[in-house]
């Protein structure tokens, strides 16, 4: 193991893996790796967006009516929560790059807290959907009888899209916990901030997905 940096002894793991020449190469590789992974994610959600677009084109009325039954306030609040968490994440990256460890920990905790709030609100919304029998399947019931069949498609997509998004949030919380440990024990330094930056990329991506989900799911034909 070649480890030339001076403060190597303090760290629980060597920052430079053996097969890289230097930290810059390692960082470049890791960053590119995350971006390529995010490209994968774009296409992953892209499949859902394609399905959504087809059915929304087919059943505009049913999609509008079903969308009305979602709680726009909770949706909007959640959007704000997630955007704020993106801000705290960006600030955490800033703190890592400038080597401010206390701030870094603080912002990571804030990001996680906001993420948890988002999931909490989502859970409240899901519970309401269950109570209203808006979950697709045998017990599905929709108030406007004539639109019921196609509203069910909307809710199917709603649950798959928000469910997969929530799953990404949960994974994000896991990553953030890990980063918190590294921030805490000093693995993250000014020189070795890239783990935080890369986790940040992931977090922001999940935010972007929501930025699209919110208008697509909550805001159809509200004026009507």
């Amino acid at each position: 193991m070649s480890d030339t940096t001076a403060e190597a002894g303090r760290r629980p793991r060597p920052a430079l893996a053996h097969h890289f020449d230097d930290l810059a190469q390692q960082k470049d590789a890791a960053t590119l790796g995350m971006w390529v992974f995010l490209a994968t994610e774009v296409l992953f959600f892209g499949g859902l967006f394609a399905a959504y677009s087809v059915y929304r084109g087919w059943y505009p009325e049913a999609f509008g009516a079903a969308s009305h039954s979602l709680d726009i306030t909770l949706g909007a609040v959640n959007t704000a929560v997630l955007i704020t968490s993106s801000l705290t994440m960006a600030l955490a990256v800033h703190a890592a790059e400038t080597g401010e460890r206390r701030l870094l920990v603080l912002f990571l905790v804030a990001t996680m807290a906001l993420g948890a709030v988002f999931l909490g609100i989502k859970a409240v919304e899901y519970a309401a959907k269950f109570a209203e029998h808006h979950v697709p399947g045998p017990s599905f019931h929709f108030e406007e009888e004539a639109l019921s069949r196609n509203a069910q498609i909307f809710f199917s997509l709603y649950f798959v899209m928000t469910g997969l998004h929530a799953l990404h949030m949960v994974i994000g919380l896991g990553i953030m916990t890990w980063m918190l440990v590294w921030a805490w024990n000093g693995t993250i330094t000014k020189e070795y901030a890239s783990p935080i930056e890369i986790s940040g990329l992931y977090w922001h991506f999940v935010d972007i997905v929501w930025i699209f989900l919110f208008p697509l799911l909550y805001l159809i034909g509200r004026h009507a």
Partner: protein
Amino acid sequence: MWSGTPLFPVSASTMAPRVDALYFFLVGLTAFFSLLIGSLIVYYAVRFRRRAPDAIGARIEGGAVLEITWTVVPLVIVMGIFVWGASVFFAMSRPPDDALNVYVVGKQWMWKFQHLSGVREINELHVPVGRPVKLVMTSEDVIHDVFVPGFRVKADVIPGRYTQIWFEPTRTGRYHLFCAEYCGTRHSGMVGEVIVMEPDEFQAWVAGGRAEGSLASEGAKLFRDLACNTCHRPVAQGRGPVLEGLFGRTVTLEGGGTAVVDEAYIREAIVDPGARVAQGFRPVMPTYQGIVTEDGLLQLIEYVKSLRDEDRR
């Protein structure tokens, strides 16, 4: 051993020669390029075989002229094939107006055919020679596919909508009918025959069939039994739109947009009335999905098609 083993399918429709011509052209093309490449590589492998253990090949960089040639020539060839294939396909997807209509319902694992005259058959389809036949097809469960190799036609049969193919038989005889889309356990047993007859024989066959009444008249019965006529009446005061003269017309929809009334539109109006609502009406019509069978739907459609403007009161 080879007697009774065909190497080429019979050609029994007007479409068959057109498809076969394209096929033979492609066989020729494939033979030409495969033999060209094949003999070149074998010839080079022999001619330029390594003669000393440390011999090295000649240094040749490659040339733009050659590269452009063997990019452009295949490009021109394939564009030709594209146009050819597309024109055959267009002919296949455009049934002649005077085609004889037959409805097809596929289900695991059998074929049901309904002639307009009301004659029904299972796994056998009788048609007259020399007359275009249009099949309007749907499925009761999963995707199937009607395939008659002798006619060179094939199309998937999809639940929830209508697809169609057409053919004009050119010779009498019995031809294989296969289900060509995998549909479960007895997919390979979902086979039947198309029986092409002389027109007069066909007339006799129709007359001999035990028709329960034409499709449209069966539909009229259903229309009363399901109480459609409580809302749809030949006068404008009904709760639903007047259906007389509807078929083929362009209707305006609630919330903008228009739609041409064809078989698929009527089908949708019955199984999913909420999807497209005619202008000036509330979506009060209940869905008949699960209440009317696919066969029943076809009868209703034929009935609605048979309602002429003149029947209005």
